């Protein structure tokens, strides 16, 4: 992330100088942080709302039921997450919110899942395989009904705003498959030294620490 961040900053200054748009770059440099605060206040509201709702679901045993539905999928994708762990429940709820197209709910639930995965990872500096899989899952847009795109199409006078739905499904699945494939392929190459043998031990069915 460090290199990308620095790269973007340096490129902006170079391109801004070349295209003579330094005014705009400067305005963005000073103004975007305010937008970030606005965005996080928006996020704060939905974080509270869905945190509350999820606590109800958890206390009433609903979370448990929903994770059961997702077990075949989630259990396969996340090898290090146990069925009865809080991380598993949070991942399942996040997937449900994504599928229902509840972007506002999916993010808070995703953050809960990330914190649980972080705890499971021993709060280490290096992301665990399951964290990466989970983030990739959330960067591919998995939803049953592409509400936003369809609404904007309707507004622009489309004859049939929903005609794209099959394409969107197929495209999401293919994109996600590509992401997961690359994820699998790079997993071994980026694993921090010293943890490989431990991972292999777990894969062989050895005891978990």
């Amino acid at each position, binding site marked *: *992330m460090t290199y*990308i961040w620095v790269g973007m900053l340096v490129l*902006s*200054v170079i*391109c801004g100088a070349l*295209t003579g748009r330094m005014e*705009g*770059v400067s*305005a963005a*440099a000073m*103004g*975007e*942080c305010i937008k*970030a605060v606005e*965005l*996080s206040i928006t*996020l*704060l509201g939905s*974080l509270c709302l869905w*945190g509350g*709702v*999820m606590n*109800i679901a958890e*206390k*009433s045993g*609903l979370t448990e039921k929903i994770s059961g539905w997702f077990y075949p999928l989630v259990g396969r994708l996340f090898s290090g997450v146990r069925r009865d762990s809080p991380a598993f429940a949070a991942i399942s709820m996040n997937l449900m919110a994504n599928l229902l197209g509840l972007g506002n709910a999916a993010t*808070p639930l995703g*953050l809960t899942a*990330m914190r649980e*995965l*972080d705890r499971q990872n021993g709060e*280490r*500096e290096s*992301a665990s395989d399951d*964290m*990466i899989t989970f*983030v*990739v899952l959330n*960067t*591919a*847009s998995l939803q049953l*009904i*592409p509400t936003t795109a369809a609404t*904007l*199409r309707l507004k*622009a006078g489309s004859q049939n705003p929903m005609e*794209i739905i099959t*394409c*969107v499904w197929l*495209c*999401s699945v293919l*994109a996600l*498959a*590509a992401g997961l494939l*690359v*994820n699998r392929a*790079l997993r071994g190459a*980026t*694993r*921090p030294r010293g943890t490989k043998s431990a991972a292999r031990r777990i894969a062989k069915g050895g005891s978990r620490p």
Partner: protein
Amino acid sequence: MTAYVVPLLLCAFALYGISQKVPVFDAFMEGAGENAKVILRVLPSLVGLMTAVGMFKASGALDLLQAGLAPVASLLQIPREIIPLALLRPISGSGAMVIFQDVLQSFGPDSYIGRVASVLMGSTETTFYTLAVYYGVTHVKKTRHTLPSALSADLAGFVCSALLVRLFFGAAG
């Protein structure tokens, strides 16, 4: 139809809670309070990322990238009118939304380009934002191969959106 989803979901959760004899409102307050603290951990990465993305967008770097990528796009059979949208989609949700509306206005939602743009918007996410926010709440400093994997998904999404629209609707219009 979609207006029903959230209200009904909230009702269903609350009613199920009561049926299981859960003190629903107390449980709600407890959960909401716990999540309120999370925001302070997200804010730093959000400020950092949005500043860089904002400067990048304002600098005209995207126009230069677009010119450079035109041959690659034509090789992958992505219409050149889609390139700005495809470039902006992973880094800025609101920016992509503006361009998407612009594409729908100028080419029509039921044209080839309008459909490709729609599928692209429906099947991809704001990758950088997701990364910043999700890793923001953890102790992770090395995200390993998260970005390459997520960007591969985006690239596959761009190529497939053009491909699938051609398959389903043809390239006319």
